[in-house]
């Protein structure tokens, strides 16, 4: 059971404004966030724009990683690059994290947005090539690493 987990509860309470709603009573939200199965998990900004959407129950460690990924995208969108980069770095530090290569990809994007220098993406993207060489993310960044 994920949500009774103390670490998840502490993480959600510290870093998010939590809202729990019934899909049947809020079909407009299911539609807006393209949720086709329950539970739908959405990290969104105060403007209602989604930073990350997931479905299904996850074990605590996976859920915390997904939530941190949403926080990172949210922070990058808000141009809070220091927070975004730290989260992306941490998420991609563990090769076992399934969101890791995607986090490293966006870490590169975040650094490019921050510095306006495309070369600043290379260190995060090299991490993808090293740790997840067979992933789609490695193929996406291969052009930049030649």
């Amino acid at each position, binding site marked *: 059971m994920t*949500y*009774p987990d*103390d670490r998840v*509860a*502490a993480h*959600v*309470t510290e*870093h*998010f*404004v*939590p*809202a*729990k*709603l*019934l*899909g*049947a009573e*809020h079909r407009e*939200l*299911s539609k807006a*966030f393209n*949720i086709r199965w*329950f*539970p*739908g*998990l*959405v*990290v*969104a*900004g*105060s*403007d*209602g724009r989604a*930073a990350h959407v997931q479905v299904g129950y996850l074990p605590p460690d996976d859920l915390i990683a997904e*939530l941190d990924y*949403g*926080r990172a995208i*949210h922070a990058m969108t808000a141009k809070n690059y220091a927070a975004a980069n730290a989260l992306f770095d941490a998420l991609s530090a563990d090769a076992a994290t399934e969101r890791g290569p995607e986090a490293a990809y966006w870490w590169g994007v975040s650094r490019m947005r921050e510095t306006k220098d495309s070369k600043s993406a290379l260190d995060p993207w090299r991490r993808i090539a090293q740790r997840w060489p067979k992933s789609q993310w490695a193929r996406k960044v291969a052009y930049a690493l030649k």
Partner: protein
Amino acid sequence: MSSIPWLDSWDAALGTSAETGKPVFLFLNAVG
């Protein structure tokens, strides 16, 4: 056991997010 202080209003969640700067975590469930 810790408990999560869930809000039951989307608009309230967006308002609190604007005040605090924290993102919303929406849990959209099939059953209550």
